[in-house]
């Protein structure tokens, strides 16, 4: 047992913090990119490529504890710029991880190397309007025609879709799950306009329509037959959202704490009033509990894999719901200061809801946790 991060991990977190902060205006990262090419996020990807950040979770990294170190770094990143974080993660930890996990060597060379080098952006399109919680009736299909595959379907809420170099669309081909890697200019690929969202406003998100997109057959990635690909991708999304929830909660807590220590009312800092100080105590309790639970869930991926799915589900529910509560309480403490557009706590509050909705929603996660307790599923 050991509850400390190593010196190397702490130095790694500090490096990530410096690189994200040093990549230009955070406010600009948190706004919809007027040029539409996500240039600042691409520059950030380049800066992160000089570290081990993009490789974590995809391959072993010497001196760092895999998913656990990744969770700590995710927290640091999301605390600074949640929008850039979500975009970088979608490229590296969804698209990149899928390629790393399931692609053949040639495909890896073509797609993974540029993504890990920060030279290309990927997106993984999973969600569909008709997707059901208990099964995975992916309506997106690929029909083999000679050396080509014709892909048809519609995807919604695809992170990075408006700017990605490649979109890996999840679907079915030849009776098995597949990822169709579609390049930006492929005929039949229609990318909807960048969605206006409540939070993560700097993250490029849109719907995607695939209208008889013809791609070479060697651009289809097939997961192993025994892998439930949609469920696996959901778990990866859950990890990303866990990291985000820690970062957002920390942003909100730190903002409220600093304000409560410096803002005076009745001649003393407002933290001296129990209704503020106690609120902060409750927020910190949720934050520290969230951190430990998320770290343990991340640790379990490598150390206790049989337990990891259940722990990630538990952490997903607790951390994302606590995050929203922390952000909400922060806004009460910050009063009008926090309500102004662009304040870190206001931004965190707007982003917080996404964590409960995306990935495995907290409602569905509870069902799955309950099913596991009942022995209805592993």
């Amino acid at each position, binding site marked *: 047992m050991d509850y400390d991060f190593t010196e190397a991990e702490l130095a790694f977190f500090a490096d990530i913090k410096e690189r994200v902060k040093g990549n230009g205006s955070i406010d600009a990262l948190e706004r919809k990119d007027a040029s539409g090419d996500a240039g600042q996020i691409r520059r950030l990807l380049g800066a992160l490529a000089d570290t081990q950040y993009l490789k974590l979770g995809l391959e072993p990294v010497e001196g760092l504890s895999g998913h656990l170190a990744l969770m700590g770094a995710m927290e640091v990143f999301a605390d600074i710029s949640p929008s850039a974080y979500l975009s970088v993660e979608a490229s590296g930890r969804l698209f990149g991880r899928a390629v790393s996990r399931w692609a053949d060597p040639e495909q890896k060379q073509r797609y993974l190397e540029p993504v890990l080098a920060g030279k290309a952006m990927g997106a993984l399109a999973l969600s569909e309007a008709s997707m059901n919680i208990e099964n995975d009736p992916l309506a997106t299909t690929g029909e083999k025609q000679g050396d080509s595959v014709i892909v048809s379907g519609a995807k919604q809420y695809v992170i990075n879709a408006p700017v990605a170099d490649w979109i890996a669309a999840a679907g079915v081909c030849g009776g098995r799950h597949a990822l169709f890697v579609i390049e930006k200019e492929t005929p039949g690929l229609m990318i909807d306009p960048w969605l206006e969202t409540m939070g993560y406003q700097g993250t490029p998100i849109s719907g995607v329509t695939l209208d008889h997109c013809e791609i070479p057959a060697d651009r289809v990635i097939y997961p192993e037959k025994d892998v439930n690909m949609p469920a696996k991708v959901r778990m990866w999304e859950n990890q990303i959202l866990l990291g985000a929830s820690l970062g957002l909660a920390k942003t909100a807590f730190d903002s409220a704490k600093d304000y409560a220590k410096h803002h005076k009312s009745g001649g003393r800092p407002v933290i001296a009033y129990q209704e503020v100080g*106690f609120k902060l105590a409750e927020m910190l309790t949720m934050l520290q*509990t969230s951190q430990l*639970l998320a*770290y343990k869930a991340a640790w379990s991926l490598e150390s206790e894999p049989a337990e990891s799915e259940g722990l990630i589900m*538990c952490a997903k529910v607790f951390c994302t719901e606590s995050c929203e509560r922390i952000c909400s309480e922060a806004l009460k403490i910050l009063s009008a200061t926090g309500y102004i557009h662009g304040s870190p706590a206001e931004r965190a509050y707007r982003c917080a809801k996404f964590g409960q909705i995306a990935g495995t929603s907290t*409602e569905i996660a*509870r069902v799955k946790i309950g099913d596991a307790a*009942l022995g*209805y599923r592993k």
Partner: protein
Amino acid sequence: MDFAFTREQQMFKKEIIRFAKKEIVPRVQEHDLKEGFDFESFRKLGDFGILGLHFPEEYGGSGADVVTTVMAGEALGEAGVDGGLTLAYGAHSFLCADTIFRHAGEKQRKKYVPGLASGEYIGCMGLTEPDAGSDVASMKTTAEKKGDTYVLNGSKIFITNGPIADVAVIYAKTDPQQQHGGISAFIVEKGTPGFSAGAPLIKMGVRTSQTSELFLDNCEIPAENLLGEEGQGFNMSLQTVEWDRSALLAPFVGAAKYMLNECADYAKKREQFGRPIGKFQATKHKLANIRIFYEAAKGLVYKIAWCKDQGRPLNHLEAAVAKLFVGDWCIGPANDAMVLFGGYGFCHEYNMERIFRDSRLAPIGGGTSDIQKLIISRLI
């Protein structure tokens, strides 16, 4: 970071659960109903080695580390042992025996610790007073030195094991003019003239533990019963906080696992509208809430234990966070478990109503949730 328990720890936990389910749990309901302390079960805890787990072997213990000791508390909760017995164990082993072990001279250690470790003696700790709860410095109990003796006067309240204790650690002011620095700690034996206990208080929960007032009326004790030196009592009481925030919280964590298992079994068997209630999403949500509390609370409690094993000074902020979380959040799962059982959950036959009643102590005992918030808000 590494959250793994050793193989030995995991095996030990299973052994405790097996032992407790066989030897203690069948007796719980009866004693809870009649609000009686289960002396036999307490002695069995001693025989099994749980009461003195963390003491060195020469004092009747097993030399276990703190994590293993905390695990024992969790295991008792997970087996279904009631909060009354685990509270009695906590007050006995950590608040009383450990304070004597840490601060008494060798003669007193040899005299008391082995008997406390085996369960031959029952211990208690007297700190709280009618007008001095969290505000310890305002205690009114005094200890006046007279030659080779101290004379204690005052009263204590809400003392777990008070009516049944053979040995008490009593905090009193040797210098009433001072605040915290005037507090000292003493060993007081049952039967000492002037020392008596009130009738057991009737409580909402943890009913098998006996709780009462203690009275000190010109109670004369040997000067050698002073623990450490005069004025060190407050710091000694703070040292028990480490146990309070780990070992004494662990049974609440274990109880969550017990509830989860019991609720899942019930939900699979109980049918409504033609199918087990476990098939309904609302039932699954309740089970999930219990599991989530269990997983979240575990991390906090074992972190305190692990830090203590590393010899680190107590991080008061993290300790308060652990107490606040377990205290405030354990009630929700207990309520969920009781409701999941429906009408049966409200009846004593099923254990959920007892666990719910027991859980109500968590945000009160050992420093209320509000006090934890006060500590946290000051430290941040």
